[in-house]
């Protein structure tokens, strides 16, 4: 076991990890941050997406030791301290961009990364960017609308032909 220290959602956190401990497992099991989910074992589904040093990564496909000393942001750190949802989270609620909630943490973290790079993405850009995040409930329709809304754009009731 090795001691690992990261700055998680702005606060220093430490824990023990083996070489093989995945960042996702470290967050969930060592630190109790169970908001990050694991939905596959082949790096497709994206339920585990967190930000490491400001970049979206799949925390199930990275070792905890690789994140030693890094800044890590997870779903738990997105809302304000008083619990107020940030604008992206709020848009997901407003536009019914989630159902069972399991893919949601990764979906929100990916969408946040998109908006950081591209503050006004088109519908097509949103759909393309989300290729590493699988949702089985929503058909993506309302996720796309939520992200459009969070970026301050008009949200079509349906697609413009």
């Amino acid at each position, binding site marked *: 076991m090795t001691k690992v220290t990261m700055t998680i959602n702005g606060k220093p956190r430490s824990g023990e990890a083996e070489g093989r401990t995945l960042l996702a497992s470290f967050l969930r099991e060592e630190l109790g941050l169970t*908001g990050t*989910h*694991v939905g596959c074992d082949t790096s497709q589904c994206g339920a585990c997406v967190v930000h490491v040093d400001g970049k979206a990564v799949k925390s199930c496909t990275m070792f905890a030791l690789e994140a030693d000393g890094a800044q890590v942001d997870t779903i738990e750190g997105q809302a304000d301290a008083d619990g107020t949802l940030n604008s992206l989270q709020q848009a997901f*609620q407003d536009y019914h961009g989630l159902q069972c909630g399991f893919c949601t943490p990764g979906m929100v973290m990916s969408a946040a990364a998109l908006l950081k790079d591209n503050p006004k993405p088109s519908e097509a850009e949103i759909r393309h960017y989300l290729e590493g995040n699988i949702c089985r*409930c929503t058909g993506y329709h309302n996720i*796309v609308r939520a992200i459009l809304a969070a970026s301050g754009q008009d949200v079509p009731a349906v*697609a413009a032909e």
Partner: protein
Amino acid sequence: MPKDSGIGASPKRREDIRFLTGTGNYTDDININGQTYAWFIRSDVAHGTINSIDASAAEAMEGVLKVFTSADFAEAGGIPCGWEVTDRHGQPMQEPKHPILAEGKVRHVGDPIAVVVAETLEQARDAAEAVEIDIDELEAVIDMKAAVAEGATKVHDDLTSNLCYDWGFVEENREAVDEAIKSAAHVTTLELVNNRVVANPMEPRVAVGDYNRAGDEHTLYTTSQNPHVIRLLMGAFVLSIPEHKLRVVAPDVGGGFGAKIYHYAEEAFVTYAAKVLNRPVKWTSSRSEAFISDAHGRDHVTKIELAMDENHKFTAVRTDTYANMGAYLSTFAPSVPTWLHGTLMAGNYITPLIYVNVKAVFTNTVPVDAYRGAGRPEATFQLERVIDKAARELGMDPVELRRKNFIQPDQFPYDTPVAVTYDTGNYDATMDKALEVADYAGFEARRAESEARGKLRGIGVAHYIEACGIAPSNLVGQLGARAGLYESATVRVNATGSISVFTGSHSHGQGHETTFAQVVSEMIGVDASQIDIVHGDTSKVPMGMGTYGSRSIAVGGSAMVRATEKIINKAKKIAAHLMEASEADIELKDGAFSVAGTDKSVAWGDVTLAAYVPHNYPLEDIEPGLEESAFYDPANFTYPSGAYICELEVDPETGVIDMLNFTAADDFGNVINPMIVEGQVHGGLAQGIGQALMEACIYDENGQLLSGSFMDYTMPRADDMPMMNVDHSCQTPCTHNPLGVKGCGEAGAIGSPPAVVNAVIDALHRAGHKVEHIDMPVSPARVWKAMHG
């Protein structure tokens, strides 16, 4: 003005807050002090005889508590099947034992052989590699028709063959249907496959067993759509634990789609092992493990014939289906190709004679059971594909052929020749709406524009009907169900007026915590924030049959309405007493009781307080307290229906399909929360489009699952989906439940596959490719092959 609360409003979902902040409580988030970890050793061959299992080296390894094999379950029952189908000769289906761990033979890749329990998961996994298992591989039975051929290798030695049942429906019509087809003016025949798919809720299954020695009490935390059903099946049939000693909790569950209805071996294992070891035991499925242990869906091979007279009126339908059961009978598997399939073969149409034959077959594959829609998608797909083919053969517009045969609004209630009675519907209305929203009339101009870009544009129409609100108990009992299909609710009003509703329905994405509260809020007039919806814990909710078959609002919601009505009746008695008025004159409006024709009123909270502080109270007439339960068992299924239109482009060079537009015009009867209903349709459509275009569960001839992970099983992504036009303005309310609701969970997955395939075939035909059918998933490679031989 749209409402902002109550029935018909779209308030934001209250459950979203915890899901959006990472504070949900899914089963894998539960960790109990002293917890151990189970690793299942699963068969890597499809069929084989187990000669020996030697776990001695593994049991000596660091951290290992015990290695379990079938010998440890000698006293336990098998995993039960909840539905017995009677075949066309009046004989019960063949029902093999489904052991918790393989007994003597393995019958599919993934069949559990042994389980290592250790202090850590990795220790369990390390030790699993040291368990020596000697298996003689046997010939795998994969193809269904070969499985029932003379002399085929048997999946179960103690059965007479691999045929589970040969079901005929309606058997008395068999000869009349044959005759009608012989004498028809036109018969259209189509052979097709309804592809095997995997439900793949994003949360893999998890089970945590806990045992309290002091009270001899078992607790199972599990990813289930119906914890009470698991309690019943596992307690009564597998582990012999009485209900009062067994608590089953299904907390936040990350999607189900059918795959989390069933009682699985892993649930029984962790429950039992927790007692043996006197330690909590946790099992978490990986996605790859889910592919070989979650029940699969669909997998029918069908030939359908549609007979018409010279006026293009349908005269008869005959279908022959081979339905894959897999290696064992999953909980509701036998009902899917029979009662959930044959009874829908009338579709939305007047067809006087129908005969459905289904041969259910055992193979060396993962068990197959209900997946979103379950039987009804298979029925709809055949019917809506063969009608499209018939229209093409007759040179008719496929919409017109459908309209010509629709059951008309004045014919309801309508008795079909396949034993069900549709209560309401208006199929021309949904068809009109879909054509309008999709701008069907403007298609040709769009097609010409596509053609100019070198693309083949097609449009496909389908109209579906489904039977939802799965019930009534007396009917399903006659059909072979081994459980009732009512739902229960308890409404507990607290002294201060806040309300806890305990429902047997289970929400795993459907938003019941929001919609159910809307209904009670509307009925009583208290703010929804004062109402909690409690579900998913057998220690809190008295009884429940759970959530599947689009039944939650129609059955569970109705039970809640009934219990709330009892609450209101009792509260009125208390209010009458408080206001010294006649009970008959008491009115409840906006959370206050008043006496008709007077200005007397008492607030809801005053009445609820009186119920618990009964100083001024009609104690001689009614008991203190304000808590009521109801069990609701509906008189009929509900019958949602709708028209779906798919518009797409085919790239003739590669066969790639670009989904351009999808329109759904559904009749769900009354709608409680339009936002949530639309979301349910979006999700169903994505699963139906996924099945139609990309999802394929493929076994090779040796029974190896080739599509065993997300590396090869294609899940629909955001860029595979179009924006969807979803309309639910056509509403013919259900006539037999108090809310007039029909259910909306499965519709999208039922109506969309034929619309998609019809659109592809339409695109190819318009470009001169005389392709009659392409089996799902209609992948680019299959389209290209169909076009170029």
